[in-house]
């Protein structure tokens, strides 16, 4: 069932097929504290092909979000580099569009103005901007909500606004950090479907950071499993489930087997994380 995997040898984990759009090479990120230097991400390398969805999954504290910030250019790596379509990234770049875990719509702007934000800052003409905003709002299923404010929408709708805002800027790579973490289970599933549909329609190269195994299997072509601290590539699992990933496929035996396989990889790492967290709890006297 498993199509391919990679070990903890630090070598580049190549995309399953097609030309890599995103190339992450030997990323190392360390944090210096008063007492020690902590390596959060240790020589992580992988590539993502055009139109591919790669999910990164790992236990809490494995450096997923640090990696998200490094790839998005919000944090500087101590070693390694990020390359998009052969161009070296040296900070935030329009080639990489980021969708965040937390509520990130601008409450003072209408839905339409939120989606138009980056286009407006980039100086796009109003007519072209309006056309593009309409297109992306329709794509995420929010047509007719242009004049609403984020406070008038549900959490799932607000996250769709954030996705539309990022997509409207036309990134080569869509980078999402646990975008459904704050939503309830049913909304997560529905929004997952929607994201998958949009990704297929746009053939959008996507890198998804998540801690949900089911979500990773539902959305991805490949799942990269990370080790617990320091965060390294433990293994990459090819998800060879047919698309579209309908309710039947999600409820299928194969889907369950992929979930079980990834959990068996992840379980040891999650236990390490839990033990580490317990060890750092203050002891009762």
């Amino acid at each position, binding site marked *: 069932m498993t199509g391919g995997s990679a070990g903890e040898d630090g070598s580049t984990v190549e995309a399953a097929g097609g030309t890599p759009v995103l190339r992450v090479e030997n990323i190392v990120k360390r944090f210096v504290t008063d007492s020690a230097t902590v390596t959060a991400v240790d020589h992580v390398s992988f590539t993502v092909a055009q139109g591919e969805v790669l999910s990164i999954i790992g236990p809490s504290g494995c450096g997923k979000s640090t990696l998200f910030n490094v790839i998005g250019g919000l944090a500087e790596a101590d070693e390694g580099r990020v390359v998009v379509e052969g161009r070296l990234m040296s900070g935030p770049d329009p080639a990489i569009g980021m969708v965040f875990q937390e509520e*990130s719509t601008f409450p003072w702007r209408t839905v339409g103005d939120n989606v138009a934000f980056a286009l407006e800052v980039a100086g796009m003409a109003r007519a072209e901007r309006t056309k593009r905003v309409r297109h992306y709002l329709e794509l995420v299923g929010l047509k007719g909500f242009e004049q609403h404010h984020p406070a008038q929408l549900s959490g799932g709708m607000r996250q769709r606004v954030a996705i539309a805002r990022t997509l409207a800027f036309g990134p080569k790579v869509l980078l999402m950090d646990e975008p459904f973490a704050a939503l309830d289970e049913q909304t997560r599933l529905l929004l997952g479907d929607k994201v998958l549909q949009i990704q297929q329609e746009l053939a959008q190269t996507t890198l998804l950071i998540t801690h949900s195994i089911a979500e990773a299997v539902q959305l991805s072509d490949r799942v990269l499993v990370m080790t617990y601290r320091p965060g390294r590539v433990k293994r990459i699992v090819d998800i060879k489930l047919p698309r579209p990933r309908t309710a039947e496929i999600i409820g299928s035996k194969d889907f369950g087997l992929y979930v079980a396989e990834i959990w068996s990889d992840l379980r040891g790492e999650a236990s390490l994380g839990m033990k580490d967290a317990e060890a750092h709890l203050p002891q009762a006297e």
Partner: protein
Amino acid sequence: MANRPLAEAKCLPAALGLGGLAAVLALTEMLIRLGWVNRFIVPLPSEVFVSFERIILEENVLSRFLATAGEALAAAFLVSLTGVALGAFLHRHRLLRRACESWVAGLAAAPLVLLYPLFLVIFGRNALTIVMIGFVSGLPPAILKTVEGFAGTPKVLLDVGRSFSLSPSQLFWKIAFPSALPVIFVGVRLGLMFSLINIVGVEFLINFGGLGQLVNELAERYDLAAMYAAICFVILVSVFFFIASEKLERWLLRSA
């Protein structure tokens, strides 16, 4: 329509507010007429109402209203500009903020109006003294709330801006400032209240200028009904500034 909550009805809240005020005035009138409240301390509301005509025709209250409103406007402009700029500066310089925040807060509670002799010596007995006292007394809440507003800007919103490669100036004007604006305006409104109280207080103390001076003169003559009517004009200045600040806040948010 029938199920629409009463609180959302368009005219009902205003009607309820005015009705409540009328009821309080009627009750006061009744208590005074029954002798339960001393009419030499609190005048009859009906007498206050009648004295409006007198203070408009005989006491030139409209030009005094404009004088006080003009001083308040000048102080408000200075408070907003300086308070927000200083607040933004302190937010950016953490050491400086930690060094001054507590004494700026202390200044907010200080009776600055008592420093009026010092201001008289520096600026003379004129409108500038009144404006400067209004400005200084309104400054602390504007500074403190601006710092609080910027500190409360969610990091993720700034990260969104950075991810779109916004320049530091665009990050400030397009994200940090509009995000902090509601809290900044709380500070500006508090500052305006402090300013207005001090402006009228100084006009009263130095017997110069607008409504404060009129209140002083009417109190000296023990014309209580007219004095209360003049105080109503002070409240009108406050209402005017409150409405103007709300409109300005909405306009700034729309343009952000």
